[in-house]
């Protein structure tokens, strides 16, 4: 801008830096507390600077309890399978809807869109999944309900297909004798890699972060994903010990760093996302901005 004074720039930086501190402060508190010695935590509470550094909480989490490792395994499994299925379903529905020549196109579009306007609510869907599909305490409970495909992403992808892929390209491929499956896999998909990367990231994040399906449908700890485990442990740290079920744990009970463990387990839950985030930041921002543009 022409009249950008130095004073204004400086003020803007100050405001933004304060906001960044506001965003990051709780994380710093969490991480520092997780590596602080248990006695210090009990005496002085959670703090930003670890006075006496100790990794006991982590040692305990990984060495004494199998719950975390299992939780990770389940989360990774659910995220990979769920994201794959979601992206497949979404693409396969979005592509035909993007074709202007598809007969009854507007009917199908509305059929998809309407699910964003009205829903039956939690109770009927809970009844259906538990009474008819019997998914309680299965891995399917973490993958199938609500997350396997959503109208929002279908519409996002459809819009992207119809604005980025010229009709002429598809028509040309058809004249050359390519079938629809071939057009989709060899022309449409390669031309749509950015949107696919973006949606993969968003959907993957949904699966990674999901704890609500676990809350409703999972009660056996052997199916606990990392988020479900975190949810359980927030209210009951003892849970980790009781569920780990290892023999000879009693002798260690007195040494459980309960105050620190709460912080360590949250770090364990959030760290993979935070570590990977900088590499995907570009796609993440892109996903947010296209998501805002109506379909």
């Amino acid at each position, binding site marked *: 801008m022409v009249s950008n004074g130095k004073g204004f720039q400086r003020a803007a930086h100050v405001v*933004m830096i304060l906001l960044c501190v506001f965003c990051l402060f709780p994380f710093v508190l969490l991480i520092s507390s997780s590596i602080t010695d248990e006695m210090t935590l009990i005496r002085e509470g959670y703090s*930003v600077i670890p006075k006496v550094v100790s990794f006991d909480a982590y040692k305990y989490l990984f060495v004494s309890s199998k719950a975390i490792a299992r939780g990770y395994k389940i989360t990774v499994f659910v995220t990979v399978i769920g994201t794959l299925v979601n992206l497949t*379903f979404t693409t396969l529905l979005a592509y035909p809807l993007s074709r202007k020549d*598809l007969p009854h196109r507007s009917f199908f579009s509305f059929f998809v869109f309407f699910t964003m306007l009205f*829903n039956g609510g939690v*109770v*009927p869907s809970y009844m259906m999944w538990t009474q008819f599909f019997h998914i309680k305490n299965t891995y399917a409970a973490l993958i199938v309900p609500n997350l396997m495909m959503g109208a929002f992403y279908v519409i996002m992808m459809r819009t992207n297909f119809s604005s980025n892929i010229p009709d002429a390209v598809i028509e040309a491929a058809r004249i050359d004798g390519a079938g629809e499956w071939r057009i989709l896999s060899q022309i449409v998909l390669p031309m749509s890699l950015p949107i696919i990367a973006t949606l993969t990231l968003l959907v993957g994040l949904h699966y990674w972060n999901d704890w609500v399906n676990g809350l409703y449908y999972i009660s056996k700890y052997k199916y606990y994903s990392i988020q479900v485990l975190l949810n359980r442990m927030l209210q009951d740290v003892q849970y980790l010990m009781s569920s780990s079920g290892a023999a000879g744990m009693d002798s260690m009970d007195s040494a459980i760093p309960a105050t620190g463990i709460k912080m360590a387990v949250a770090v364990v839950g959030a760290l993979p996302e*935070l570590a990977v985030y900088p590499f995907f930041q570009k796609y993440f921002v892109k996903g*947010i901005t296209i998501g805002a543009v109506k379909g």
Partner: protein
Amino acid sequence: MKNEKQNNARPAVCLRAKNRRYRPLYAMMVPGLLYLVINNYIPMAGIVIAFKQVNYKAGILKSPWVGFKNFEFLFKTKDALTITRNTIGYNLVFLILGPLLAITVAILLNELKSKMAKKVYQTVILVPYLISIVVVSYLVYALLATEAGFVNNSVLGAFGAEPVSWYSEAKYWPVILVLVHIWKGFGYSSIIYYAALVGIDRTCYEAAAIDGATRWQQILHITLPGLKSTIITLTLMSIGKMFYSDFGLFYQVPMDSGALYDVTNTIDTYVYRGLMKLNNVGMSSAAGLYQSFVGFILVLTANLVVSKISKDDALF
């Protein structure tokens, strides 16, 4: 040309051929549509549960009808008022404060010259949006825990003030929840507004500056009008969701503390507790249907209003 000729000559055959051509496309849609039927449409039909007295032994289909009894019970309780008030109240505050902060941040980002700084700020303010609400609950717990919490020990302690038992004092929670919501979400909406700002033609600002417009005048007369359609779209979406609340925020962050229900109970948490904790399916499904129904009307109304004011910004 050839196609047309055929069309005229043998319309029936050609129509069949044409339909066959689309068969693969329909086949592609099958899994997705089937999933929507199961995951979304069957539960829509399931709203009849709200008019039944559910008996698990008899099954849902054979459970007896009770008409509007469940709703009568629900609206006789104090809960109905509390959950409606909380759901709408918090949403109203979010609706006003959210965009204010987000637009301010977007404008600041837009005015900053340093590309590097812009990128860093964008990255950082999105971090809270990235993590699950369960982890957020731990962050809040680190701050507010009675024994070990940062606020009690390091903030109140430094001033010699008495520690507060945060998780049992309802009066603080409206502020806490609004802060947490803003903390988690402002980055996301800032990015959306910022993207809209980037789309505004830079020459407008240059021309305005030459004409002697101050920064304030530029923001008022170029930036905000440029954001109009984004503001309308996002506000419309929020109004449509006015009857819904972030379940995690109201259930998980206060750690489901009973002492706080008066200010943390929303329709979503009420439905959850009714169904899973109290086993009161009748009330729970009545509250759920109340939410879906009013929510639906709100979306339609909001959209209608927008299509009257500014047709292009309507969602449908």
